[in-house]
């Protein structure tokens, strides 16, 4: 590696960052400076906290407990690391190698700079000092043997970051094909989300809770039998108390035995997992050192180092292949093969086929329908839209499952509130997409600005393009709730117009967000580029306002329940009628406000265009 090249790349990276800060404006710089100070304070706190815990709290605990602590830290680190990875799924090298390939420079220097740049993240800034602080604390608390934790932790970070870098590079190479890119981004995101939600799924299933329930049921049966015996005068009253105490003592003994067995089982499983899964080598090493055995630590350090070196080497090779075009070179086909003939003749379209973008919608203006169907078509194809649209489904299943599993005793009269909450959550999870409608159009937004379409129709069409998704998600929620916690028929029917109400209310807010706080989105990702502080704050504020915004939709059920509780009106499906009225009022209000919002859009469209077509460096 040429040291001059390395210094030049380091300077270049620094200069680009400074220029980006200057372009972001003074407000952005101040906020970033405040964030940097907070992070520095957090890192210092993590270092001191980790050291104190290692030195004083974990000085005398058993090796197994120490292993559990490290397991928790490693799990927390990986979870946080994974979230960071999701937001930047495909590797975005800070220095694109294709800008240097024609120069006589060391590509390894640029590669190394890119790898080191990829490490700078909140997770690393907080976890590195914490884990090193903890290791140092353990040295002081438990003895010099714990010094071996330092190379083990270093090797752990080296391995995790190198594997991640290799993985991101592999994804980048796979995404050379734009169509495959969409599938990969969607698939990987969904896998990450499911993986991150695994603890929640485990919590729903609660396999460990079955034995506890069995013990509690046994106790309940015995106590019931005892009470029945007392009532049937099979036992004397003075015998009841000792027998009852005996049952309770037996249960406690059973529980203790059960807990002990569970602890032993847990330890076996955790040790096995730590051995099988490489991240577990770190806790296993800590456990070994605490027990006086340095071998697991040394083996772990060696293993991590090899994984790190191998991954980084592979990442480098992948990068080289990517930039030298080996991934996209394809195979050489002989001229005039049947495949060539086929591609020239089979691609002829059927001119009479009616395409989705040609459909009309009754009572909806032609231009709005055109925008709606073109928008819907784009949404069904765009990977970023797929990623965002799959979130409501996943979160609906996870959170809905948890809620239904833990709260089965909601009275039927109150279940519409649960349906409302579910629908609100669906809208909430779609806000990122609907609230930045033009951001995902990118250059396509120019077609709206240059076109002769009244801006009201553009907004209506854009909103309509999201309706099939919103309606489907809400219907899934309603069906789910109806299956597990059935509502009265009139309540269920009352929820249907509620779907339209919450959607239109959401659209009105989302239109304002799209007009006043547009964000540029990098192609194929959900990540905003050239982020300014104010639009992000506006989006966050809007998210907090959503529950208040949706209040009109739930008012009919509140009125019905209040009147019913007061005994003034019972057995009348009042909420159904009121819901229809509220929905009609919302539709009327939406149409009126849309004209005003259309004017707003027209007055700000050039500024929106400037934002959504801006590209990150």
């Amino acid at each position, binding site marked *: 590696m040429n040291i001059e090249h390395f210094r030049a790349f380091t300077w270049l990276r620094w200069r680009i960052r400074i220029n980006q800060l200057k372009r972001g404006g003074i407000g952005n710089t101040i906020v970033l400076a405040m964030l940097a100070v907070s992070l520095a304070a957090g890192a210092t706190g993590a270092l001191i906290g980790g050291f104190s815990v290692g030195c004083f709290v974990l000085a005398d605990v058993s090796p197994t407990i120490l292993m559990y602590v490290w397991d928790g830290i490693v799990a927390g680190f990986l979870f946080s690391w994974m979230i960071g990875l999701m937001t930047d799924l495909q590797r975005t090298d800070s220095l694109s190698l294709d800008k240097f390939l024609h120069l006589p420079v060391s590509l390894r220097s640029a590669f190394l700079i890119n790898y080191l740049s990829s490490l700078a993240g909140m997770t690393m800034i907080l976890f590195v000092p914490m884990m090193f602080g903890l290791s140092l604390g353990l040295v002081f608390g438990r003895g010099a043997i714990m010094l071996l934790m330092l190379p083990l932790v270093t090797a752990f970070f080296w391995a995790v970051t190198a594997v991640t870098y290799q993985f991101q590079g592999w994804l980048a190479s796979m995404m050379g094909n734009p169509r495959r890119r969409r599938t990969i981004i969607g698939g990987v995101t969904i896998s990450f989300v499911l993986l991150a939600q695994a603890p929640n799924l485990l919590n729903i299933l609660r396999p460990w809770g079955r034995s506890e329930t069995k013990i509690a049921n046994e106790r309940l049966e015995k106590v019931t039998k005892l009470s029945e015996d007392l009532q049937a005068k099979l036992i004397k009253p003075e015998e009841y108390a000792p027998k009852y105490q005996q049952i309770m003592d037996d249960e406690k003994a059973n529980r203790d035995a059960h807990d002990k067995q569970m602890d032993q089982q847990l330890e076996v499983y955790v040790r096995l997992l730590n051995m099988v899964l490489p991240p577990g080598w770190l806790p296993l090493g800590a456990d070994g050192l605490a027990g006086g055995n340095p071998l697991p630590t040394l083996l772990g350090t060696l293993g991590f180092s090899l994984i790190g070196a191998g991954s980084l080497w592979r990442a480098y090779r992948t990068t080289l292949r990517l930039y030298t075009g080996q991934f996209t070179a394809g195979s050489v086909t002989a001229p005039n093969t049947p495949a060539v003939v086929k591609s020239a003749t089979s691609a002829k379209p059927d001119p009479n086929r009616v395409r989705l973008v040609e459909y009309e919608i009754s009572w909806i203006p032609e231009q709005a329908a*055109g925008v709606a169907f073109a928008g819907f078509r784009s949404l069904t194809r765009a990977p970023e839209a797929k990623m965002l649209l799959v979130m409501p489904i996943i979160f609906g299943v996870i959170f809905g499952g948890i809620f239904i599993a833990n709260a089965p005793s909601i009275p039927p009269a109150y279940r519409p509130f649960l349906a409302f909450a579910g629908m609100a959550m669906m809208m909430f999870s779609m806000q990122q997409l609907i609230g930045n409608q033009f951001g995902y159009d990118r250059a*396509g937004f120019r*077609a709206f600005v240059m*076109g002769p379409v009244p801006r009201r129709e553009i907004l209506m069409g854009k909103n309509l393009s999201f309706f099939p998704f919103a309606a489907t998600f809400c219907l899934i929620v309603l069906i789910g709730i109806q299956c597990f916690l059935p509502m009265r028929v009139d309540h269920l029917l009352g929820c249907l117009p509620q779907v339209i109400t919450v959607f239109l209310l959401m659209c009105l807010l989302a239109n304002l967000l799209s007009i006043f706080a547009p964000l540029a989105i990098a192609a194929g990702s959900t990540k905003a580029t050239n982020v300014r502080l104010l639009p992000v704050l506006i989006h966050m504020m809007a998210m907090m306002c959503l529950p208040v915004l949706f209040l009109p939709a739930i008012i009919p059920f509140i009125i019905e329940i209040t009147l019913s509780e007061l005994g003034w009106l019972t057995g009348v499906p009042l909420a159904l009628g009121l819901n229809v009225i509220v929905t009609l009022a919302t539709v009327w209000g939406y149409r009126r406000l849309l004209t005003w919002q259309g004017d707003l859009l027209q007055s700000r469209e050039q500024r929106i265009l400037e934002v959504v077509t801006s590209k990150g460096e």
Partner: protein
Amino acid sequence: MSLAIETRQLSRYFNDFRAVNEINLSVERGTFYGFLGPNGAGKSTTIKMLTGLLAPSGGEMLVLGKNVSDPKEALEVKRHVGVIPENLSLFDNLTAREFLTFVGRMYLLPRDTVRTRSNELLELLGLDNEDKKLTLEYSHGMKKKLALAAALLPNPDLLFLDEPFEGVDAVTSRVIRDLLAGYVARGSTVFLTTHILEIVEKLCTHVGIIVRGCLVEQASMESIRQGLSLEDRFLQVAGGDEAVAPKISWLEGAAS
């Protein structure tokens, strides 16, 4: 003859930088107007303002006799105008045919008209075999062709073309040139920016030259050329002939 485009003191500043400085354009209807200038002279900024993509800092703009700064009049003007902007305006996730259908609907064209015109334009521009490809998979040249098809689809009275020949192959370039020549011959207007002076010389009836934001020449092709080639005249007006390349000894000596 009435004017297709008229600007009065049209200006655009970016902070302290004057990208376009009080220009007075006059483009008559039925003319093929070439708008020339060196890099960064303000050509694209002017087109952006005339097509509503960028708000001017000052001055007036009349396109097809209407004030495009007025929101209501701007919509009316846009019904009669086709545009290929500098960075195009395509939706990544639509096919060419879907995009043209979308554009046709925006101009309220009947479905059959959209279909017929789309088929003809796609065939003419050689995009008719790419029915399953999304525009994100298109090459830059194919994207240019699709943008041209979209601009022509509503059969506008005025076409704004910002660098339409950039990245387009020679065969298609010839097709486009013939198409545009016929389009102007029937009485429509084209406002074109390009760096390819040969094309301007062949096609344009009128030329405007902008240098550092100022309109320094505006006349018919014959008047502009003054017996010289367009390239010589352009270099003269743009100041290119005065710039003498400084001597760089190490480039002119023996290679090291």
